[in-house]
Each structure stands twice: as structure tokens, then as C-alpha cells.
């Protein structure tokens, strides 16, 4: 039997956060392949590479050098090639206006970075599981909005 993987990208300039994130996924029971990127330019270069395997879920930090999360989001939403990618904003800053703005611009999920590892694991597990349902059950991705 073929094993199915969920492909995950994370763009975040903070090395500790990236490590936290990959560790959390290692401990989940869902099969995932996680790639991380240090900034928005790095991420966009990879996404635009025709040979790249596109992610099922992309986690985007908002505050990054060179190209920030919102710029990446807008660029991704302009390109039809990326229509199937669920976008999760993964950020510490969160005013209500900020959050709503990212949703309006096409983000599917908004995650406020938690302070402890266990909460992070729980949140990531929930996000990936629900995305998996959208992916496998023909649910309408346009209506996929979630805040954690």
C-alpha cells in the first residue's frame, strides 16, 4: 500500500520557532514531510521552481525580512498554480484588524504562536487534520476559515 504524506512548508525567520515546529510535526501520528524556509524570498523562489512539490499547507510567519508574510500571501493568491495550497498565518502579532485582513486577502487559517510546545502540537495536529478532511472529502476550500 502506498503511504500518503501531507507536504508542509513553513516560512519563518526565527530559527527556534522553526525547530519547535519541525519537532512538533515529528511527534504527530500523521505522516508529514516538512520543509522550512528562512524568509519570504527563499520561500517564493522555491514555490516558483517548476520542479517543486507544492505543499498541502503553507505556514507563513508575518514578520520576516526581505519579503514579509503578507507580501507572500498576496503573491501566492495571484497565481492560479497555488490555488490548492491552504495558507496558515503563523504569527505572534495579532490585532483583530490584522487577522481579518489576512483572511480577506485569502488566508485560510490564523494561528497565534503559542508559548508552549504541547499547545503547539495540539494546534498543528488540529490544523493538519482538518486540512486533510478538506483535501480528501471534496469540501469547498473557499469556505475554509479557521482561527486558533
Amino acid at each position, binding site marked *: 500500500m*502506498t503511504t500518503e504524506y501531507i507536504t508542509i512548508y513553513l516560512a519563518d525567520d526565527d530559527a527556534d520557532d522553526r525547530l519547535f515546529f519541525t519537532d512538533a510535526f515529528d511527534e504527530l501520528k500523521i505522516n508529514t514531510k516538512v520543509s522550512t524556509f528562512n524568509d519570504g524570498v527563499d520561500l517564493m523562489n522555491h514555490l516558483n521552481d517548476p520542479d517543486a512539490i507544492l505543499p498541502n499547507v503553507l505556514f507563513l510567519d508575518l514578520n520576516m525580512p526581505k519579503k514579509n508574510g503578507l507580501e507572500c500571501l498576496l503573491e501566492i493568491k495571484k497565481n492560479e498554480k497555488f490555488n490548492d495550497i491552504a495558507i496558515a498565518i503563523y504569527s505572534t502579532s495579532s490585532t483583530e484588524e490584522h487577522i481579518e485582513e489576512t*483572511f480577506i*486577502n485569502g488566508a485560510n487559517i*490564523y494561528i497565534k504562536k503559542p508559548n508552549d510546545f504541547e499547545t503547539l502540537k495540539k494546534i498543528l495536529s488540529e490544523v493538519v487534520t482538518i486540512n486533510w*478532511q478538506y483535501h480528501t472529502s471534496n*469540501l*469547498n476550500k473557499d469556505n475554509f*476559515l*479557521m482561527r*486558533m
Partner: protein
Amino acid sequence: MKAFIKFDFNTACKKILKEKLEECGIKHRILGFGEVEFLEKVSPEKLNLFSKLLDPYGIEIVKNQKTILIQKIKDAIVDMVFNENISVNVKSSVYLSEKLNYSYGHLSTLFSEVTYTSIENFIILQKIEFAKQLIINNELSLTEIAFKLNYSSIAHLSSQFKNSTGMTPSAFQRVIIKRKELINKNNP
């Protein structure tokens, strides 16, 4: 006169597979014994033809029984949530087990094993998805939607909606409307 023949199953089967795949015009890669990867989307017609061509050789495509049953459970749930004619008084566990002819325990264990979620959560997910559609259509009030989806009150619907999506029904509606406005503005 007799001749003794020695043959290698693996090579023979691979050769048959390759020929038949080519006959159907399916781009493929043979991964090893008993596994073929299709390098393109294969239509059900093509797959059917492929399976017919293999039949005389005693080769058949294995369908994963689990996957098939999971799909049936999902279809039954969608039907239950979206179809008003199904009696609202029947418990979903009873409904599913009668419709699919398996004990609910069996269905429930299998479902959790394969989909990473439970039947209960999947039902909630489907109900909330239906609520979202109705909210977007804007024809029914929240009270009417709650009633249609068999919630005891609007508060119950709102709290399940909030639990499942992290936002209130009205925040959801606001985002979807603004998103549409933005798309219309960008593509006049």
C-alpha cells in the same frame, strides 16, 4: 514430446503490465512487484479498460476495501446532513450502522484509523460546512439555519461554529463578503 519450461513470474507479470499499460496509453512507472504508479490522471474508463485487459491473465487491480468503506461512510454522512428527508429523530450511529450494515463500533474504529478524525467530528464538520454555505447564500437567518440543521438553539449553533472554526458566524460572513468585494475590485 514434452518440454519443460522454467519461468519467472516477476518478469512475466511486469511484461504483461507494461504491454497493457501501453495499450491503454497510460503513462506509468512499474515500481516493483505488484505496484504500478500512474504518472498522469487516469480516467475511470481507462482504468476499466486496463482492468479488463488484465483479467484474462488472472491479474486484477486491488481495491482497498477499507478505503471503499470509508468513502461509503462519508457519503452516508453527507447525505444525512444535507438531506432533510432523513428523519432527524434517528441517532447518527443507528443510521450509519443500519445503512452500511456494520456495527457502529466497527465503522467508528475504522474511520478514526484511516481519516485521523472521528465520525462524530466529521459529522460536526459537515454540519458546519453546510451552515457556512447557508450563511453565504444569505437567504436564511441564523435562527432558520439552526433549525434546519437540527440545533436546539441559535446559541448552540453559534457555539459549535465558534468551536470548530474559531470565529463567530457573523465574523465568517463578514470576511467572505469582504473577500468577494476585494476579488471584484481586482478583476473588474
